[in-house]
């Protein structure tokens, strides 16, 4: 990439894939869009570090996942990523209202139209970020366990057990929404 025009070409080519991944990882469009933007900005900033040993899309994918992990870690420290009911109900009435982007209404119109897909997206958004990411990698993108373990820097066995628990949670959430 010699100049911004070349990078913009890469941005437009890889944009949908990274944008979709970011939304799936974050569970809502607003955070996903921010994550995707941050991914491309970081890619431009560290373009000299790209050794071109892999496809640029893979490199961008990895950046996006790392940024998402950083966000989760950061929000965990701030107790921000704890589960919050999207219905607005909270046990702590005095707590300041969090301005979490609502995942369900922000999903794509096609998904909104599909009732099934809508319920799945609602259920996914209620999962923990780690569970949501595991199911995204495994169930939606069909990534092998080894690659998921490599992406998330966790042991293979841990990945498998967490995916199993995430499936169970998603099923429970889906059933609850269905009722």
């Amino acid at each position, binding site marked *: 990439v010699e100049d911004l025009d070349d990078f913009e070409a890469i*941005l437009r080519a890889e*944009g*949908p894939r990274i*944008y979709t991944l970011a939304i799936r990882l974050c569970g809502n469009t607003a955070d996903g869009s921010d994550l995707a*933007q941050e991914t491309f900005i970081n890619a431009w900033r560290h373009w000299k570090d790209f050794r071109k040993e892999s496809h640029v899309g893979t490199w961008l994918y990895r950046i996006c996942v790392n940024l998402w992990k950083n966000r989760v870690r950061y929000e965990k420290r701030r107790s921000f990523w704890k589960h919050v009911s999207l219905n607005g109900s909270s046990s702590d009435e005095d707590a300041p209202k969090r301005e979490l982007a609502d995942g369900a209404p922000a999903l*794509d119109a096609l998904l909104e139209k599909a009732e099934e897909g809508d319920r*799945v*997206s609602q259920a996914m958004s209620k999962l923990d970020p780690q569970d949501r990411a595991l199911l995204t990698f495994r169930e939606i993108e069909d990534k092998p366990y080894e690659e998921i373990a490599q992406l998330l820097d966790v042991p293979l066995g841990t990945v498998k057990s967490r995916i199993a628990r995430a499936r169970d949670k998603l*099923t429970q959430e889906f059933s609850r929404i269905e009722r």
Partner: protein
Amino acid sequence: MNDTDPQLPEDVRKALKESPTFTPPESFYTQVMRDIRKQDALLRPETPRWAWIWGSPMKLAATTGIIMISYFVARDQTPWGPKKAEVVYDQFGSAGRSPVMAQAPTPTLDKNEIVMLHKIVNAPAATQTGARAAAKDDALKIPRPIDADSVADKSTTAPADAPAVLRERVDAPEKKRAAGAPFPWQSNVQAKQMEPMPALPASIPQLGGGTNAGASHKELSAMAKSKNARLLRDEASGSWSGQDSRISFFRTAVITTAADWTVLWRAHVTSPAPAVDFEQWMVVGLFAGNRPDLQGISIVAVQTLPDQVLVTYQEIPLIPQRGDPAKITPYTLRSIAKTSLPIHFKKL
């Protein structure tokens, strides 16, 4: 555990598999590119924001400091002191620059007189100040003539017993002062209070003119008691000394002719030169130059040796808080019997 245990319900799995790919809006690309351009600008080597404010003053201060240091080093003196060069070399002009010469009229010497002055005042400086005198001549850029008749041989050494004899002579005034006698240099009439020098003639020299011309020793003694006592005493003893010579650099003088004497005296003071009979007498003396650290200079002994005449002189340190040190130019002149022997000066 494997990936099939537990499995997702089929409808959920299908819904997940069919989840759409999201297409970013155009605003997404615009926003990303705008942020990248902003980041790119921030990542460039940033010019220090206040560099233009601090740069010039710091350069100016550094340059000024370097110039000042170079100036003081070149002057080789304290920053706030008088300029040595002007004080030392102003005797032949530029009186306005010199605090010493400002109060005295500038001697009006033409070029020939200056050359003559140097010819007669070119007796070698004492060993301690010879290099300094030579440096003054170099600064004046006037050739320093060498006169074999009047310049003493620098290589001659004093006899072995000279130091002991001179020490005795030098210590005598100190002993007298310790006993309560006044300092010989506490008066301008120095010669009268000094010990008689062995080389001085037994009789008063026959002076070439003036009120005491041709007078005998007794007549001169009687005249010395009159109202012109000071002048008569000076001339009678053939000795002149003081602190206000206009010759502001160190010089020794050996005068053997009236013409030389007149030229020297004009450079020395504004008053007419005293008459001296150079048929029988000659004048030796020293000008200490501008010496703020001295109260005076005096000849303590004139010793006639087989191969030379040794003039021993002494510099008298300044008593603190007495007058303006910057204007002290001590001198001493003395007439001695004319001799063809080389004259040597030695500082105690």
